[in-house]
């Protein structure tokens, strides 16, 4: 057998365990789950076939539209901020120096805390008579309603998400940064390159695979925002922080409309697949040429 032939066989064998696992535990249940969107089902009793009614219902549901807007708004803020902050942190802590282990651990620590605990702290700090407003008053800024305000609550959820995520993506960038062989920097040093030149001509291009990953994953996390809303605001006040996945969850498990919820989940899935395909084509799969 040719080398090429061996490579093809090896390729499939290597892929098999995960492929089979994903097929059984994700793809198959997903197909079943999305299939429910064609029915009305309260979780008890019979399922009633209704075709695409649930999909039409979505676009006439003001709360769904609001959840869609909230989700998009959140993604537009979360993805770039998350990217920039975690990259900046990774660059800061990349070089070994005194006490760097301490800083690395501190920046990563929020990721290890359960969201419930972070929400506990957040809901206390961002009370109207809370800590955050006290700090603002030092600068002469008047008290904000914060979590109780339909306009401001989403930003607080965003802050919580960023706090809980940047350490995570920082670690990913760190590993990616170290993927770049030292030799390239050494050579540049000989030529007298500055920090920014290093960054633009060596770091950023070679970071493309990692950047692509961070972009896609943060996009998925942003669109699927659920946990942070669940622990901090419950979608309130008055749906100001209700995201699609959260609204779908409520629709299924609090209002017992599993079919309608599945339709929302499926729409979310399609949006993500389309967006990711676009990004994949545009960024050439994050491959470095």
């Amino acid at each position: 057998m040719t080398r090429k032939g061996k490579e093809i066989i090896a390729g499939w064998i290597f892929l098999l365990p995960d492929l089979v696992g994903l097929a059984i535990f994700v793809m198959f249940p997903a197909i079943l789950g999305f299939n429910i969107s064609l029915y009305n089902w309260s979780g008890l009793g019979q399922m009633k076939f209704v075709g695409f009614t649930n999909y039409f219902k979505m676009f006439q549901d003001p709360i769904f539209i609001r959840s869609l807007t909230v989700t998009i708004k959140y993604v537009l803020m979360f993805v770039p901020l998350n990217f920039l902050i975690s990259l900046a942190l990774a660059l800061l802590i990349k070089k070994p120096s005194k006490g760097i282990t301490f800083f690395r651990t501190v920046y990563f620590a929020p990721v290890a805390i359960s969201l419930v605990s972070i929400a506990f702290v957040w809901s206390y700090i961002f009370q109207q008579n809370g800590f955050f407003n006290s700090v603002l008053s030092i600068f002469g800024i008047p008290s904000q309603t914060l979590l109780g305000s339909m306009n401001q609550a989403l930003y607080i959820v965003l802050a919580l998400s960023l706090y809980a995520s940047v350490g995570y993506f920082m670690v990913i960038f760190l590993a990616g940064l170290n993927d770049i062989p030292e030799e390239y920097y050494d050579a540049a040093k000989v030529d007298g390159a500055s920090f920014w030149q290093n960054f633009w001509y060596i770091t950023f291009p070679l970071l493309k695979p990692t950047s692509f990953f961070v972009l896609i994953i943060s996009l998925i996390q942003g669109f699927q925002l659920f946990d942070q809303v669940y622990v901090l605001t419950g979608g309130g006040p008055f749906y100001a922080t209700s995201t699609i996945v959260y609204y779908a969850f409520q629709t299924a498990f609090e209002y017992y409309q599993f079919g309608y919820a599945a339709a929302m989940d499926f729409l979310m899935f399609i949006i993500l697949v389309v967006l990711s395909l676009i990004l994949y084509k545009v960024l050439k799969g994050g491959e470095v040429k």
Partner: protein
Amino acid sequence: MKVRLKVVVSVLLILVLASFISLATTISFWKFTDTYGDPLIIKYVNEWNQLHPNTKVDFVEIPWAQYTTTKLSAAFASGQGPDIFWVSPGDELRYYNAGVLQSFDKYLTKAQIDDMFPAARDKVTIAGHVWGLPIELEPLAIYYNKTLFEQEHISIPQDWNELLEDAQKLTTKDRWGLILDPTPTYYELFTFYPFLWSAGGSVVNSDWTKSTFDSTAAIAALTFYQDAFDKYKVSPKSIPTAGTNDPSTFISGFGAMQECGEWAIQQLEVNPPKFKWGYFPIPPMTKGGTSISVVGGWIQVVNKNSPVVQDAMDFTLWLFFKTDFLKQWCTVQNSKLPTFKSIYESAKDYYNSPDWKVFIDQILPTAQPEPRYTPEMDLALENALQSVIFGNVSPAVAAKTAAQQINNFLSTYTGAH
């Protein structure tokens, strides 16, 4: 490393398989976790299991927030609900309409049914039959900081205007005047009912054909909420706990007054605040009107489709009528009002304490049981509340919208009420 893993896994597999080989039947009993109350239930479960080694009860505790939402739903959706579980009036109809509830008619004597307090009996009666056993009665009141009231020379408010005035006097930079529930949850609705009813309002007519929510009474109640949260800003639009059913905010001095239930009495004894406390009935809308509180409380039901229905019923009846469970639950483990007159009589010493006086003499006589509206109706009402508190919607519009939504729902609803 890999070999050791295989050994561990194999041993586990054997243990797991072994656990399936017991020949006894198991009765699954699901409830939301209560670290303080559950030891009592566990005690009786163990007692039963010793007396009946072939029909053991498996008591499962589920985190409160996930109990009705994910855990029960997932279990029933996959076709296998628990044999015994606790249900709140808000969910009762849903299970009833799906034919999940086992009727208790044949198992209770007339004396036992008459022994229930009317509010408790109403809770478990649907279409003239009994479908569960009521465990507790939980009315709401307004707790207040007695020390502050004395300092500011404030007396107990007798109507809504006075309540708002007092709250304004007590609101400072560091303290809210009156804590009402702002969270988008079912509990928020529960705490709204006393205000709706004390204004003379209601949600639907008695045979559920039409919504009565678009009324001056409902608008007055919604206006009160908007005044408290938005106009006079005496109520916090966000709270640091998951809901105001937790009196820790009151105990911390976060608010001078907080609407809460009788369960808080025990917590206030265990974790006393730094001030003297008391509670008073939710004031009527105008002086001389009737104050009507809402009475909550869970119900124990049996799954009609359970393969061990008879055993489940046996256990439930034993727990409620042959043991001290109810009395201990209400007077020792927690501070709750009982659902049976006989239990109340037998615990007279406990209920005669000054702490209970106002609940028993003033609040309970006029209190109404928690309604059992369907989730669709709840959603319409919650939206009305959230929109007037946060969305600057006029109470008249909010009431009208909610009534319309409820009417739309009722026109297709064919279940029980």
